[in-house]
C-alpha cells in the first residue's frame, strides 16, 4: 500500500493572472511529482496541491519566492489515511 507520510496538501490562493501562470508551470512540471486536487484557473478559486514530503521545501520556497499566498490544508496526509483505515476496519468488524 502506498504511503504518504509527511505529505501535505497546500491550499494556494493566487492573487493575479501572473501567479496563475506560475502555478500552471508548476502543474506541468514533473520534477516535484505534485498532484493538483484542484487546478489553477482563476484567482477566484483556491488551488489545492498534494505535495510529497520530498518536494515540500522546494514547493513552499517556490510559492514564497513568488509571493503566492498559501496555507497548509492537510498537515500530514498519512495521518488522515490511517484514521480512515481505522474507521473502515472498525466498521467492518
Amino acid at each position, binding site marked *: *500500500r*502506498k504511503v*504518504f507520510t509527511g505529505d501535505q*496538501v497546500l*491550499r494556494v490562493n493566487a492573487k493575479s493572472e501572473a501567479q496563475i501562470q506560475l502555478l500552471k508551470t508548476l502543474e506541468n512540471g*514533473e520534477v516535484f511529482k505534485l*498532484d*493538483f*486536487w*484542484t*487546478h489553477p*484557473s*482563476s484567482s477566484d*478559486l*483556491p488551488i*489545492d496541491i*498534494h505535495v510529497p514530503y520530498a518536494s515540500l521545501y522546494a514547493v513552499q520556497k517556490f510559492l514564497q519566492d513568488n509571493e503566492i499566498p498559501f496555507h497548509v*490544508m*492537510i498537515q500530514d*496526509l498519512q495521518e*488522515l*489515511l490511517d*484514521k*480512515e483505515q481505522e*474507521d*473502515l476496519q472498525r*466498521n467492518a468488524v
Partner: protein
Amino acid sequence: KGGDTKSFDYATYHRLDAIYSWMDSMVAGHPNLISKVQIGSSYENRPMYVLKFSTGGNNRPAIWIDAGIHSREWISTASALWMANKMATDFGVDPSVTSLLGKMDVYLMIVTNPDGYAYTHTNDRMWRKTRSVNSGSTCRGVDPNRNWDAGFGGPGASKNPCSESYHGPSAHSAIEVKNIVDLIKNHGNFKAFISIHAYSQLLMYPYGYTCNDIPHQAELDSVGRRAVQALSSLYGTSYRVGSICKIIYQASGGSIDWSYNNGVKYSFAFELRDTGRYGFLLPANQIIPTATETWLGLKHIMEYVRDHPY
C-alpha cells in the same frame, strides 16, 4: 422488504465486494422496482453494474446517474449508495418519487470505475484514473472523464499517460466509458445525465471543452440554481452553479459534454462536499449529511425533467 440493506451501514465507506453484495440485497428487497443490470466489464474484468429503477413499461424515458468515475472520490460512491436506498424506500411513500418512477426509469451507476475503486482500497488511496496499461509507458490509467468524444484531446486534458488527466489514446478507448456510451446510445431515450463527483461544492452544466454557452444555458442555469437552493435548504451548504468552463476550468472529453451533444438536454455534474478542509478524504461522519442534501438537489433536477418532457 429491504433484506439486509436495513442493517447496511450507510455512514461508512465500503469495499467493492461489499457494495456489490449490497446491490443484490437491494434487488432482493425491492424486486418489483430494482434490477441489477450488467452493462459490461472493466479493464481488469470486474463487472460494471447499474441499478435500474423501473415500474415497468418499455424503453421509458430515463435518467442516468453515475458516481465514482474518479475512484478516489469516495464520498460520491457513498452518497450514491444512500440515495439508492432513499429512492427505493421513498417509492410508494413520497408522492414525488412515486410519480417520477411512474413515468421514468432511473439508471444509477454507483461504482463507475470499479478497478480504480478497488485499487484505492488496496494499493493507493489517491488513485483517480482507470487501471489500464498504456502502451509505451510505465504509467497506468486513463482519466475516464477526459475520454469522452466531446472536444476529445483538447485543452484541459493531458496527452501524457503519467498525468492524472490523461485523455487516453482515443475517444471511448476506456472500456468503462465505452460501456456507458453503448448503453446510452442503444437505449436512445435518456432525458437526463447526471454525474456525481467530489469535491468543491459545484453544480455544473456543459460545456467544459469550450467556454461557449450551450443553447439551453438559461434553462439549465435556472434549473441548477433551484436545485442548489433545495440542496442548501438543509444545512446551508453553499454551492456555485455554472458551466464547467466558466466556474472551474476548461476540460475536454467530459461525460456531460458528450451526453449534451448527443441529445440529452438535462446534463449536469455535481461536485460534492467539501470546499477545502479534507478534499478527497471527507470523514465518514459526513457521508449521510452530504448524501441527504445532495438528494434534495438531485430530486429537484429529476422532478424538473419529469415535468418538462421533450
